[in-house]
């Protein structure tokens, strides 16, 4: 059962206090977008064995959504950061690169 540190209130929350929200950093495609873009937004999800960025809400806590960088294979957590981020913070990216040299980087 995971523990993730909420970047808003500083609590190391356990999984039962959190609600999962799937892949992070999705770009919304609304009216006017073509079918491929909409399909990708709606359905195409990464499912890597390794580094993954995901959304979590501190549901039984401060109620805030945050993002986590995590290894799906070892469950190592590289860091958490606010949901108001369009991409992972540099320090987390650097940490992942150091720990997972084979990682191709955030895309």
């Amino acid at each position: 059962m995971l523990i993730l540190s909420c970047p808003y209130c500083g609590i190391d929350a356990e999984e039962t206090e959190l609600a999962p929200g799937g892949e992070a950093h999705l770009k919304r495609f609304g009216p006017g977008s073509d079918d491929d873009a909409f399909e990708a937004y709606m359905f195409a999800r990464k499912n890597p064995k390794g580094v993954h960025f995901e959304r979590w809400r501190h549901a039984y806590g401060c109620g805030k959504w945050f993002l986590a960088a995590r290894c799906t294979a070892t469950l190592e957590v590289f860091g958490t950061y606010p949901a108001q981020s369009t991409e992972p913070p540099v320090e987390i990216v650097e940490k992942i690169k150091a720990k997972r040299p084979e990682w191709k980087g955030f895309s």
Partner: protein
Amino acid sequence: MSDPVSALQGASYDGFAQLREIGPLGMITLRAKAGTPGLEAAVQAATGCAMPQMRRIVRQGPCAAGWMSPDELLLILPYADVAGALARIGEALQGQHHLAVDVSDARAVFRIEGAKADQVLRKLSPVDFDRLEPNELRRSRAAQVAAAFWAEEGGFTLVCFRSVAGYVMGLLSVSARPGAEL
């Protein structure tokens, strides 16, 4: 208007810790971003309390101000003072984006008292009570429902939603039964 009644009308239980439902208490949810001009004045005007730091609750007589999230405070005050406090908040935050609502009746409040009061909560919440700091307001869950609690005056005060007051009383009572000390 009849007298306001709390969810369980003051139910109590004596086990290895003493439980009672208190209230009704006046409660206001105040949402505003930190640093909003007038926010400190609003909290002061409503409760007489200073702005609480992250995860802290500041008490002043019968009033308190607790940090709920980066843009939410819980203000506690006598039930009868809520309307006046809302008006004062409105004045202090005039023209500023905020939301202040009366949630007094949406909540149930319990006191858990006695030397082993913490043990009652250790059975219900995934919280490290050894590391709970003085005046720390912790939001978590009590078994299957949301709860917030803090230590004060030889015990703990726990706030939950009104509709599950009976469930929470049941949880606390079962946990406090004699013979079940940790």
